[in-house]
């Protein structure tokens, strides 16, 4: 290889390295931010759960439409799919798509997509997207929930599922499936046990039934918000790691290229010396 080409290559690789390094730092900051967001929402979820516990012991949960669909007209499923808007985040999107194709029958499902990559993937496979909330997703949690709820209450789907990458730690996330409608029975069982230890009677206005219905809706909405934040944090951590790997690889590449450059330079010098020496010898002989 020509020494000039090697030099050029070193320059371009170090530029790439600078970019990936910057992206890594940005992703790290964003990850921290989305983790903080998830943490700041914790008191709300906690209080909501507490109130549900306090009043769930007083009424029969079976009456709520949230636990059982009444007039089912379609046997399809509604899937709320969380992915990212941008690429360059390692296997983040790929993992969720693999999970999706494994566990969901795409032709039998309708989709609400959050994240452009997911929307593109679904439309490529010929799936039906009913709504796409890729733009400004963090402010549309309530709207996402409303869309899903209407779909469900009109009997246009038998269940609503969330599919997202669950953030576990900076180095680890896991594709997860969570059924939000109809509400799984499990939550009210562990609610009832805790409710027994409740002290003091509460006055409940307007009535426990109406209030609980609303509370459960808020609860589901929080599930969606939780999934959104979790997916967000996972995306940024995934991107951070991908960019860190890219930076490390670039560093290694630069090291090898510099080695090669030095070798070439040395070679050139050696040849020049040889030339000079042979020329000198020739001159002296004559």
């Amino acid at each position: 290889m020509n020494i000039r080409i090697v030099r050029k290559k070193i320059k371009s690789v170090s530029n790439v390295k600078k970019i990936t390094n910057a992206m890594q730092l940005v992703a790290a900051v964003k990850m921290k931010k989305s983790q903080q967001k998830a943490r700041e929402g914790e008191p709300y979820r906690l209080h909501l759960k507490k109130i549900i516990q306090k009043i769930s012991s007083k009424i029969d949960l079976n009456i709520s439409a949230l636990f059982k669909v009444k007039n089912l007209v379609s046997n399809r499923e509604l899937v709320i799919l969380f992915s990212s808007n941008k690429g360059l985040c390692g296997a983040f999107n790929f993992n969720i798509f693999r999970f999706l194709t494994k566990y969901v029958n795409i032709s039998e499902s309708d989709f609400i997509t959050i994240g452009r990559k997911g929307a593109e993937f679904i439309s490529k496979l010929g799936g039906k997207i009913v709504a796409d909330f890729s733009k400004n997703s963090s402010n549309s949690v309530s709207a996402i929930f409303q869309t899903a709820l209407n779909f469900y209450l009109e009997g246009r789907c038998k269940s609503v599922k969330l599919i997202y990458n669950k953030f576990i730690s900076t180095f680890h996330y896991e594709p997860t499936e969570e059924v939000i409608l109809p509400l799984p029975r499990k939550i009210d069982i562990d609610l009832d046990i805790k409710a027994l230890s409740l002290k003091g009677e509460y006055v409940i206005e307007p009535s426990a039934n109406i209030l609980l219905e609303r509370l459960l809706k808020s609860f589901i909405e929080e599930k969606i918000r939780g999934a959104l934040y979790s997916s967000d944090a996972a995306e940024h951590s995934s991107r951070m790691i991908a960019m860190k790997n890219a930076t490390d690889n670039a560093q290694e590449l630069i090291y090898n290229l510099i080695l090669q450059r030095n070798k070439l330079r040395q070679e050139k010098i050696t040849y020049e010396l040889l030339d000079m020496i042979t020329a000198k010898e020739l001159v002296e002989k004559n």
Partner: protein
Amino acid sequence: MDILQLKIITPKKVIFDEKIYSLTAPTLDGEITILPHHITLITMLVEGIIKIKRLTGEDYLAIGGGYLETDGFNVNILVSSAYGQESINQKLIEKAIEEASMILRKSEDKQQRLEAAALLRRSLIDMKLLRKKKRIAVNI
């Protein structure tokens, strides 16, 4: 004078955590005012304005709905939706549905383009083949 500890919590974060004298909030049946030593109560709040009597001055807060819980000393307000949330939602949903149909249309366009490209490629090959055949025919 007795005081209440008020906490206002939204899904995003705790926005108010202070000691207050009293608080007036909109509920389904009208307005209620919570004073210290209020009976333990859980109630639903509707769209309206919460009036807070702080130790110094008053404060107002517009909410779109939520829950209020008190035991006479502490008041917790969970704000589940912002003011005017429903109309905001309506707009967002409409936009999302439009977006979805656009994605589908785009992918349809893409598919048609791909199919057209494939057709073009095939016919180009056919033409080449034909030309070759002709040449052979001429040679013979």
